[in-house]
């Protein structure tokens, strides 16, 4: 049996979170009525001219710095010429020969916590096209140009990934970077991140790449995984059956989990790229780049290393908590309130994540704030409540019963009793009420006593309505029972 190796390269289009379009002042907000957010420039009216949005440049530069890329002093916009109804000018303004971000690299984390590096070939700025709407117009096509001119950063990787899992880890890493930087909302459902996946296979050990297929517009982590899995299998089967993979563009059908070849025109498109004469070359000096660098927040990989090395979290915990900016910020806020990183990590990844998952909420939508959770953990750490009571308090916070853990502890009388006198009183009562059990206990040997003491602990806890400190109860009981 031949051993195959999969080779994957990705082109990820990230919609940048600018207020206005890349070359016009029209809004980029999602979901508006068709053609209400397209101005004369977006419509490609005669005589209009593009003006580059400086924020889009700043965002691209920040991305470049985040992936350790070279930021060339000069980059250039070019025109990619082709006719399509949702492309108003008959060309897309993009970058080709001189992109704004040069070669770089992204660290990806696999499920087992191991990391590796994927090289970025380059990233370039371009404008999005509009949308063709085929559904509602019988036999006709509607054109919505709201999206036309929305800034995109196209991030092109080297063919460095060897499995669907690596590809997904790569996209997740990009997602984390762009959302950390605040340069994109990363909303894949609304098309803020769209992937073209290049897949090929080759016999293991062969240096030359196989012929690749490009799968267009794969728009979720899950679809990326499925599309690659299907495509790899298809290509291997094809070759095993004596066929050949042809270089083509394919579409992923999420309903059937398969890729299909797109009908291709006989002649290949010649885009006739040439420098856009309406836009000046983008000149970025070192001072500008340094300024953008100074404005950047801590990045996911930096956070992960800090969580692991400074806060003493496990590699796994650090990786999970740093995977999204929202999660990391929540965790750090909890930690700052309670003062204990490990406890904070346990609660965020345990109780909180379980509840969020169950109700399908994002961490930003958590009904329990980081301050509330931190306050709760504090009460566990200072022995005000037991771990068991803490879960009750968490649930009550989740349900919105009160504003703080303290208020719930107070209202429900969950404060642990640590007063030795009070506990001793309860113990004495339980011993007096259970003569048979006490006799049995005292007759038993040390090994059996260990099990039998549970009965008395339970009774005392019951008597205290769960507020007695179990460890304290245990040791006092042992003293008293062993005395006789």
């Amino acid at each position, binding site marked *: 049996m031949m051993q195959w190796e999969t080779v994957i390269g990705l082109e990820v289009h990230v919609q940048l979170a600018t207020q206005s379009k890349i070359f016009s002042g029209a809004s980029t907000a999602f979901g508006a009525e068709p053609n209400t957010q397209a101005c004369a420039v977006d419509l490609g009216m*005669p005589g209009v001219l593009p003006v580059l949005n400086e924020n889009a440049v700043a965002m691209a530069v920040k991305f470049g710095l985040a992936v350790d890329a070279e930021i060339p002093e000069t980059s250039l916009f070019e025109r990619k010429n082709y006719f399509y109804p949702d492309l108003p000018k008959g060309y897309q303004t993009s970058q080709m020969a001189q992109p704004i971000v040069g070669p770089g690299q992204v660290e990806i984390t696999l499920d087992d916590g191991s990391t590796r590096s994927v090289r970025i070939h380059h990233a370039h700025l371009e404008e999005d096209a509009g949308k063709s709407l085929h559904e509602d117009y019988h036999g006709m096509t509607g054109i919505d140009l709201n999206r036309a001119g929305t800034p995109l950063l196209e991030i092109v990787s080297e063919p460095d990934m060897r499995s669907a899992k690596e590809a997904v880890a790569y996209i997740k890493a990009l997602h984390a970077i762009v959302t950390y930087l605040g340069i994109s909302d990363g909303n894949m459902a609304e098309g803020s991140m769209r992937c073209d996946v290049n897949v090929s296979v080759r016999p293991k050990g062969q240096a030359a790449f196989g012929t690749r297929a490009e799968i267009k517009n794969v728009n979720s982590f899950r679809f990326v995984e499925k599309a690659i899995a299907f495509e790899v299998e298809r290509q291997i089967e094809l070759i095993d059956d004596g066929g050949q993979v042809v270089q083509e563009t394919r579409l992923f059908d999420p309903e059937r989990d398969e890729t299909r070849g797109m009908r291709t025109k006989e002649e290949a498109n010649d885009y006739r790229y040439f420098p856009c004469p309406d836009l000046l070359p983008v000149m970025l000096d070192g001072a500008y780049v340094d300024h953008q660098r100074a404005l950047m927040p801590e990045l996911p990989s930096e956070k992960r290393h800090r969580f692991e090395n400074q806060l003493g979290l496990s590699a796994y915990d650090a990786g999970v908590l740093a995977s999204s900016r929202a999660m990391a910020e929540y965790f750090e806020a909890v930690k700052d309130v309670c003062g204990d990183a490990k406890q904070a990590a346990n609660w965020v990844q345990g109780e909180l994540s379980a509840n969020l998952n169950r109700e399908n909420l994002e961490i930003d939508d958590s009904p329990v704030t980081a301050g509330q959770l931190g306050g709760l953990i504090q009460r566990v750490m200072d022995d005000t409540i037991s771990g068991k009571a803490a879960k009750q308090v968490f649930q009550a916070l989740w349900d919105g019963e009160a504003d703080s853990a303290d208020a719930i502890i107070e209202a429900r009388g969950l404060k642990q009793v640590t007063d030795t006198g009070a506990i001793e009183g309860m113990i004495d009562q339980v011993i007096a009420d259970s003569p048979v059990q006490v006799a049995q206990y005292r007759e038993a040997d040390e090994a059996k006593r260990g099990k039998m003491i549970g009965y008395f602990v339970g009774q005392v806890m019951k008597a205290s309505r769960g507020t007695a400190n179990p460890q304290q109860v245990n040791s006092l009981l042992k003293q008293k029972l062993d005395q006789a």
Partner: protein
Amino acid sequence: MHDKTLTELAASLEAGEFSSRELCQAALQRIEQLDGGLNSFITVTAEQALANADAADQARKAGHAGPLAGLPLALKDIFCTQGVRTSCGSKMLDSFVAPYDATVVEKLGHAGAVNLGKTNMDEFAMGSSNENSFYGPVKNPWDVSAVPGGSSGGSAAAVAAGLVPAALGTDTGGSIRQPAAFCGITGLKPTYGRVSRYGMVAYASSLDQGGPMARTAADCALLLETIAGHDVRDSTSVARVVPDYSAELDTSLAGLKIGLPKEYFGDGLDPEVETAVRDAIKVYESLGAKVCEVSLPHTHLAIPAYYVIAPAEASSNLSRYDGVRFGHRCEDPTDLEDLYKRTRAEGFGEEVKRRILIGTHTLSEGFFDAYYLKAQQVRRLIRQDFLDAFDDVDVLMGPTAPTPAFDLGAQKDPVSMYLQDIYTIAVNLAGIPGISVPVGFAGNRPVGLQVLAPHFAEAQLLGVAHQFQQATDWHLKRPAFGKEMA
């Protein structure tokens, strides 16, 4: 009234000799009675013009008249005018009503100028005779059997015939200067980036520049100081202070160093044109200027380089005319491809199609390096020629065009038509400013002197032209056409 310059008319309005309404009404009447014989206007906006004239009269009464308040003008139909058809001389845009004003239109409006209408032009500014217009050719008021030049032929003819005292044109390869020369008026192509291109329908974006066409250099100065300046909507417009051109007109010519490019006086130059130009240069010498010969060694490469770069940009700029959003759309398209093909086959004229094909070819894979990149290299050499020449001289002078206006229909071969622009086209490739000044006649047809200066030296250019017009009266000559009308 129609023989006066802008500057004179401004003084008359200020003195209350007549109102802007009276002035504009008279001009509109002249257009109505005479333009049938010229075809210089595509659209006349009489009603709007009179309303604007009234507004200017009131502003003047109220004491806040702008620098051009109440002065009638015309705009080449390449400038977008809100609510008014902007056809660019093409069937493709015959139905296109612009939803916005070009920056220069806005600026003229703020200054109080009254636009009387949109002038005829070669389709999408592609041509040197104004014969490539969907609206028919324009005739030269000096001789109606002659062309007015192009592509701003309508603007030139309208000014020459006294229909308007001034007009705006655009110049991509000579389209202001050559028609100015053919029609005996003064026309200035500013430095690339001096005047905003926003709202000017693009032909070749790296070469297009709007500018004034008028009777005198002084009038051009008045208009240029209004329309020039940086525009945030045009990234290629330059952020540089706009000088007070009118105030700098009277700079003495003593010691001015004039270079005569030997390549501009070679084969193909009409002897009568040469004589008129050489006589003008003698006038300059008499005014204290020093004249020497210079060389622009890459001149012969200008036309080939231009006819690679301009069509390349045009092929992309004109892709938006696809029948989808505005302009002409073919009847009952069977599918998308049919929509594109028939819309464009029907909407564009011959010359426009020719240039789209040339440009598409030169940008295509396998040809790009040999044509487009090579042409860009040539462009740099041509620019360097001028920069080198300006190390030694202040301005360059020569004929604007190799011949006077030719007969309508005389130039049948596209290449011989392209050769009309042999002295003007390099100027666009280099981005420097140039002006054409009337300096005499070849037979009954005017001859233009072209004066060139370094980047952003419009003040000097206008001063040099103005000093000539102070010493001579060629710019005061009027054609017989329309003379009978007061």
